[in-house]
């Protein structure tokens, strides 16, 4: 299928009323969740995954992808009005967005954030369309050693970029891999580490673990700290930025788009890094860097554009290599596999409708988000005023239903509670949950690729260092992990985190 036929097919799929509705539901729920500090896009996708089981795979992916970039949009609202990021990638928007709101420019901050996100999201989707196709063709030529090395690189980048101790991040990645081995052995079908439990034959479910680590643990932390949400009491008017603000924002939006898109592609990197790099770039390029943090619109426009185009870029490794670049993509990978679709180089050949349907739905989703974000700001502000004592039991109930519904098994709720406790302790002790979840998703594929590679090489590990792509990926992975033991690089990493 050529490029234009693909785009046309995508539009044909997305123009059906049902898919438009799922796209709308995805971006609406995503924005709502992005607005609420608490559950986050990983938890939301996990929660709604069981609800998509009766849908066809295209509609399911359209809805789940909508939640992802909807959450990217919605996260900025709490950053600007509350100084609390709705999701992690919006942390940087707090710096200047909240200051703009305090100075009575909340409308302009919200407006430029919505427009910047729209422009970047749309351009990011263009990038995804143009890059994914040739990359998938290249990916067809790579074998198990390259896949194993690339997955190692993904885990290494993620552990390198996590905050705090790399030892802790590596131990979480190892724990995630061990948990992924529970169930049937990929090659022999032998039961492993199941403790005789029938419920563990298919392994530990991704959804209960994600719900526990991200949803329940977040609620527990907020319950302990008694968060009080005080929405800035300013009248939100003038959502359209003025000519001067547009002039100052155009450059940061375009730069943020390019930076974000390319920083979103490498497995392990994320939109959090993209927004931070964009902010640092704008500060460096500005004639008044000292005024950053006091309400500079460039500090809102650039990072917001970067985190949205990174969301589009993150789909590239998922669709072309089958490697999730972050935890949201890891959950999406799990969702696709539940629907019987295995992302990877063959996706474009075997399921072009999934790829082109999701890509075109992103265009439409970006338009819907712009229409949603601007007129519905008042509604989002009202949502923000719901007290946490009402919100937290509802979030817990949603997590319970999400964990239960996948297999209709109370056992999965118990798994979620256990990982809720583990996640709560991890937050307290500064262990990052992201490497654990990514390793849990990648574990089975990594084990299969490693075993196939070793069979190919008659047991020699040199296969990972003699094939060019595998050697580069493995070399980078080893270098990233080893960098923790080099004092200078270790300090650089700490500074970055």
């Amino acid at each position, binding site marked *: 299928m050529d490029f234009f036929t693909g785009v046309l097919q995508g539009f044909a799929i997305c123009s059906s009323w049902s898919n438009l509705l799922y796209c709308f539901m995805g971006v609406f729920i995503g924005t709502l969740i992005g607005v609420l500090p608490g559950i986050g896009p990983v938890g939301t996708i996990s929660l709604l995954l069981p609800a998509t089981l009766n849908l066809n795979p295209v509609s399911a992916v359209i809805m789940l992808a909508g939640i992802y970039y909807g959450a990217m949009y919605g996260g900025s609202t709490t950053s600007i009005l509350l100084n609390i990021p709705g999701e992690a990638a919006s942390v940087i928007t707090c710096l200047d967005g909240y200051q703009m709101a305090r100075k009575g420019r909340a409308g302009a901050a919200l407006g430029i954030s919505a427009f910047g996100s729209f422009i970047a999201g749309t351009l990011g989707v263009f990038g995804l369309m143009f890059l994914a196709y040739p990359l998938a063709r290249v990916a067809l030529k790579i074998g198990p050693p390259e896949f194993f090395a690339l997955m190692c690189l993904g885990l290494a980048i993620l552990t390198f970029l996590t905050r705090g101790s790399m030892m802790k991040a590596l131990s979480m990645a*190892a724990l995630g891999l061990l948990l992924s081995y529970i169930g049937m052995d990929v090659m022999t079908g032998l039961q492993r580490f199941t403790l005789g439990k029938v419920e563990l034959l298919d392994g530990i479910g991704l959804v209960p673990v994600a719900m526990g680590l991200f949803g329940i643990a977040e609620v527990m932390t907020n319950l302990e700290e008694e968060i009080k949400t005080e929405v800035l009491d300013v009248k939100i008017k003038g959502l359209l930025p003025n000519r001067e603000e547009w002039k100052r924002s155009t450059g940061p939006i375009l730069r943020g788009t390019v930076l974000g898109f390319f920083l979103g592609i490498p497995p392990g990197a994320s939109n959090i890094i993209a927004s931070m790099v964009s902010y640092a770039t704008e500060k460096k390029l500005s004639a008044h860097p000292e005024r950053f943090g006091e309400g500079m619109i460039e500090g809102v426009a650039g990072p917001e554009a970067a985190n949205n185009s990174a969301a589009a870029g993150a789909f590239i490794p998922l669709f072309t290599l089958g490697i999730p670049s972050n935890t949201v993509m890891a959950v999406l990978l799990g969702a696709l596999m539940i629907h019987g679709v295995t992302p990877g180089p063959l996706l474009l050949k075997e399921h072009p409708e999934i790829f082109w349907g999701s890509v075109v739905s992103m265009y439409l989703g970006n338009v819907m988000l712009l229409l949603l974000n601007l007129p519905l700001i008042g509604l989002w502000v009202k949502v923000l005023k719901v007290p946490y004592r009402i919100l937290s039991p509802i979030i817990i109930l949603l997590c319970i239903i999400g964990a239960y519904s996948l297999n209709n098994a109370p056992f999965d709720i118990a798994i979620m509670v256990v990982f809720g406790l583990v996640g709560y302790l991890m937050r307290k002790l500064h262990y990052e949950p992201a490497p654990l979840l990514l390793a849990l998703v990648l574990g089975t594929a990594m084990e299969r690729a490693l075993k196939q590679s070793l069979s190919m090489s008659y047991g020699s590990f040199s296969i990972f260092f003699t094939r060019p792509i595998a050697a580069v990926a493995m070399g980078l992975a080893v270098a990233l992990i080893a960098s923790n033991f080099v004092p200078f690089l270790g300090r650089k990493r700490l500074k970055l985190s």
Partner: protein
Amino acid sequence: MKIIELAFNLALILVGGVFCISSVTLGLGKANEPGPGLIPLGTGIALVLFSLGATAESYLEKEPEGEIFSQNKRWRLVLGVLASVFAYTFALPILGFLLATFLLLAWLFKASGVKNWRGAFLASLVTTGSAYLIFAYLLQGNFPKGIVGF
């Protein structure tokens, strides 16, 4: 904080150790024909080593020890909430979705700060009813009815 961190790391070491022992009993195979236990054994060893490294790192760092839990003792509330959701997994098949969820939510609302039981029960009734309507009726979810039959 360091005591709790040590306990957490010891738990990780224990998990890694258990996986290593179980892996050996599963069979390791050969390098060119790995058995079901070979790769888990390597990963288990890695978990033990990284956890030992994290423990050593925590003891070597010069930062002053901070309090891990907030001083207001609300961590007890956290444990209470987790225990109640855990108990819910056993109550669900017996009491059914509606009754078990209503009771759990009433407690959660009260524990989260709703001032009186009447308010907690009312909030629970509305939330349970709405959840049932959306997930069981509209999305056709399959929830247990329990001994009460609804």
